[in-house]
């Protein structure tokens, strides 16, 4: 049978080639077979190879032990009174098996727990494969759990309030993946990078090897059995959308949308006038509140609007462009990075997280620079300029926001829950102010400043910023109108 061969291949590869430990769970998860079958397969393999010293077994024994005898000796014998049936579950290395069994009064289960290339002397080693397993599990979701024989019940529920669309997809994606963003939040951007390296080091090493065989294997199985579509999907484009399997349909849609959008944005950049482009870049990072509403049409509109607006803004252009200079290389870097990492979706995902941070950072820095300028300029210019500006601003912002959002929202949800959603109006306000003033700004000397500043500010950006920006859709409009009134 093919599957038998596959199991044999798998075990041989793990034990002989990679010299890693295989537990019944890793076998069952990777090849999508029931845990009980996996246990037998391990036993079989072990039995067949017992003279070649390829595999050393570790056993799981469970049964009743005579613990009570040595337990009740203490002072509180009478106090503790009740005797309780005690079951012991023990992990035993092959050579100790017989001895261990003597400690049991009765044994109700015994099976091979793991095979390892060398006798196991450190029990914690059996935990090693789990890191990988969790990832596999997260990718394949509940379906796998059923296949593998994990018990679940009707009272085990997901939180319904959590927005099935976005939150679930990434959240399910994997614990290990979730780790990265969580860390990232706490740490500064640089640290994020480090962290990622660490994690990828620790996991990627074993995993990258494992990933391939696994993917292959699952593919085979699925074709044979003609099983779930998802896995087929995985097969076809494993790097790009393995998440899809887990994500629900709506989120799927989003995802796809994202992917399509990104390239478009790039194209647009080339086509449209630079001004609008840079403008969009700035605003790109802040995610818009309602991506689904009208992703398609508005995307195009903004550029048109901008073009219309341009005459007014043409003066401003130089300013913005300069401030954006740092942005461009980053974006390129992102694209590159994505390409490089596309081998494993994990990394891609991670990359995307990272990029968002950076992108924001940039926009922030740009706006920061502008703000500085604006501080100087506001007083002199505000009277004339305020009237036309708001219109332009709002249009531009709306449009650009809509384009970019989905990427950002997706990432967010992966590690956050409700609390961050509170709107933080301040940065937005600042931005609106900055931008308008900056736009009106004509002084050439400002440029020098802007270019020089971004790097220093770059270190600062926080994920929070994103959120703030995101929630601002109407807020900044309001703030905009409010401001002139004050003055």
């Amino acid at each position, binding site marked *: 049978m093919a599957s038998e061969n596959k199991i044999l291949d798998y075990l041989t590869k793990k034990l002989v080639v990679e010299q890693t430990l295989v537990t019944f769970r890793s076998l069952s998860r990777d090849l999508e077979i029931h845990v009980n079958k996996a246990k037998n397969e391990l036993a079989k393999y072990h*039995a067949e190879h017992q003279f070649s010293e390829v595999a050393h077994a570790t056993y799981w024994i469970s049964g009743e032990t005579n613990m009570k005898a040595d337990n009740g000796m203490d002072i509180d014998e009478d106090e503790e*009174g009740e005797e309780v049936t005690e079951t012991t579950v023990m992990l035993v290395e092959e050579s100790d*098996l017989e001895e*261990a069994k003597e400690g049991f009064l009765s044994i109700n289960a015994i099976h091979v727990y793991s095979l390892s290339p060398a006798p196991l002397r450190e029990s914690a080693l059996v*935990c090693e494969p789990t*890191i990988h397993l969790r990832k596999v599990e997260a990718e394949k979701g509940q379906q796998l759990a059923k296949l593998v024989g994990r018990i679940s019940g009707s009272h085990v529920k997901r939180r319904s309030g959590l927005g099935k669309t976005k939150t679930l997809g990434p959240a399910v994606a994997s614990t290990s993946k979730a780790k990265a963003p969580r860390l990232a939040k706490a740490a500064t951007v640089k640290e994020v990078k480090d962290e990622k390296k660490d994690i990828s080091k620790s996991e990627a090493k074993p995993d990258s090897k494992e990933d391939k065989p696994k993917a292959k294997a699952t593919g085979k199985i699925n074709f044979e059995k003609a099983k779930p579509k998802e896995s087929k999907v995985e097969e076809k484009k494993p790097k790009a959308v393995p998440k899809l399997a887990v994500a629900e349909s709506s989120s799927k849609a989003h995802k796809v949308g994202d992917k399509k959008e990104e390239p478009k944005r790039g194209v647009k950049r080339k086509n449209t006038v630079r001004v609008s482009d840079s403008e969009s870049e700035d605003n790109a990072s802040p995610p818009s509140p309602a991506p689904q509403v009208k992703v398609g049409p508005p995307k195009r509109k903004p550029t048109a609007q901008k073009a219309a607006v341009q005459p007014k803004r043409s003066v401003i252009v130089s300013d913005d462009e300069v401030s954006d200079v740092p942005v461009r290389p980053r974006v390129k870097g992102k694209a590159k990075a994505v390409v490089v990492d596309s081998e494993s979706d994990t990394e891609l995902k991670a990359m995307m997280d990272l990029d968002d941070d950076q992108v924001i950072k940039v926009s922030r820095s740009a706006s920061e620079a502008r703000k500085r300028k604006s501080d100087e300029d506001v007083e002199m210019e505000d009277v004339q300029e305020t009237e036309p500006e708001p219109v332009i601003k709002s249009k531009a912002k709306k449009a650009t926001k809509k384009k970019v959002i989905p990427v950002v929202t997706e990432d967010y949800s992966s590690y956050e829950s409700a*609390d961050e959603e509170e709107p933080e109006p301040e940065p937005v306000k600042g931005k609106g102010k900055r931008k308008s003033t900056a736009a009106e700004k004509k002084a050439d000397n400002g440029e020098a400043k802007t270019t020089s500043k971004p790097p220093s500010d770059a270190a600062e950006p926080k994920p929070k910023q994103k959120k703030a920006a995101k929630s601002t859709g109407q807020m900044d409009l309001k703030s905009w109108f409010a401001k002139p009134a004050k003055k």
Partner: protein
Amino acid sequence: MKLMAYARVSKVANRHSQHEITVVKRCILDKRKVPDGLTDGKRSNGKRGCASVRSESEDRDADAIVTHHETPNSRPRRVDFVVEFPLSQNPSEVVSKSWMQQTPCMINLLPSIHLLTESNRLVPSEAPVRLPTTVLPLTDKTPSFIIDKKNKSFRHQYANIYFVRLRALRGFVEKEARKRWKDVKDTTEFPKLVPRVLDVVKGELCFVVGTIYMDMPLKPNVLEDVARDHSIPAPPPRTKIWSEDDNVMVEDESGRILLVGEPLKKVQLVTGIIVGVLGMENSSGEFSVVDLCFAGFAPQEESDDGERMDVDVAESQQEYLATISGLDIGPSSAADAQIQMMVEYLTGEGGGPDNQVAASQISRLIIAGNSLAPIAGTDIDDDVRRRRRDNTSFSPHPTLNLSAHLLDLAHSMPIHILPGASDPSGTILPQQPFPRAMLGTASTYSSFNCETNPAYIRLAPGVSDKTAADEAEASTSKGASSKSLTRTVLAVSGQTLDDMFKYVPSPPATRIGLAEATLRWRHMAPTAPDTLWCHPFFTTDPFILVQTPDIYIIGNQPKFATRLVTDGTRRCRIVLVPSFAETGILVLVGLRTLDVKVIRFAVKGMGIPENSPA
């Protein structure tokens, strides 16, 4: 390809003695030299010798392949026959048919051989489904310990707690006292209740109700702390603050009176319990005690009284509640393997089919505190950090590690997690729940609950009302009984008991005894404002037990212990749950019968302090 099973037949080859042969689970062969001229091996498959088992085992037509190994140095000389046979055959048949006929032997087939071969092979056609239980909303009698905005203030004095407590429990104690002492005949008739401690008349038998205050020289004292020489490091906190010089007093709003007398030595008292004291004031102004009485068990929720008979019937199919405490996941936790085994057990993956069925009966898991190890000192930290760099296999973040385990479990079962003494949570009781986001993806499950430290959880076996109604139609009797059965679980992470335990001399006193006493005192944390830090509640004392719980779980105890306390119709299962990291113990409590099972996870011979029985 035939699936083969293996058995080892050991034979004591004392030529003239009787042969005794046992078939052990499966063969374990070391590459020992195999002597020539193996008649037995010959007999079974027609080949001589067995230098290479592999080549022989390719001969699939043989009923069984027997190979012969001799252990050189064993005494008496011991010869192992390895019997290899197709799984389709019953092992004992195979052995006797092909080989045993010639040599009269006794075969003991251990049940394990079946588990290894036959039953394990079976992939259950239907995966066992976890028995459901439903969490019911809390009632007034089982309040939530969440400190809401209203109570958040720290401005209040702790005295309020004592005041509230005395007021709340005084009535019960008085009632109990009158019942208990109605037959006491002394000078006149019934001993008189003196409402204020200071109004006690010398030489007259009476009883007073008040709060116990233990005046203990070894008790931590703020004044001593201030006066201490700070150039010297503070002595480590004592494990016991009990001493011979302790004075017991009873106090109420008016004042205190010192208690003396023999009866005090027979009971264990701690600060803060409400007692009634029968006795009289002696010439030196002390109150010599004749007897003491407490509030006694609080009533229990009525609903299940009538159901007990049904309950016992359902024993075989009852829902279990798993509890665990002290996972102590830290930078380098020694119990990693055990934790993983526990997870595998609970998710129904590890073990044989029996284990898996047993696991499906476990309806939910309560983690009673200390899930994370206390943060070690900086020295150790550096050391650990260095080591960590070498060992990339483990996440350096205990929280991530914990949440990964929790997620594994949350996929499969509902979890209630309580903060404990070593967890990143407030020190004062009631400890507030972990922020869900801290525990990662597990928190996306609505069946994953972060609880306060003392926490009441009300459970009903069976599914929630809607689905229960549907099921009730299908199986009326079952659905009906499960609906009316509710169990109130009180879970504590152990600080309350640990603190009380300091007050009492431990040879006579035991933790389980104290735990039981708290039920009689109707107060789960009497030492609370005194030596146990707690929130300055103003209008309530939430630690008063208005209702006796059905299951009382106390986590992070040094040893496992349990007792079913009964008082009339009231019964309460007390369970002291030991630290998992130290003992590997998971405790199961049956929700219907309140019986207890212990499952111990251990590893043997793997460089870790053994938890093995032998």
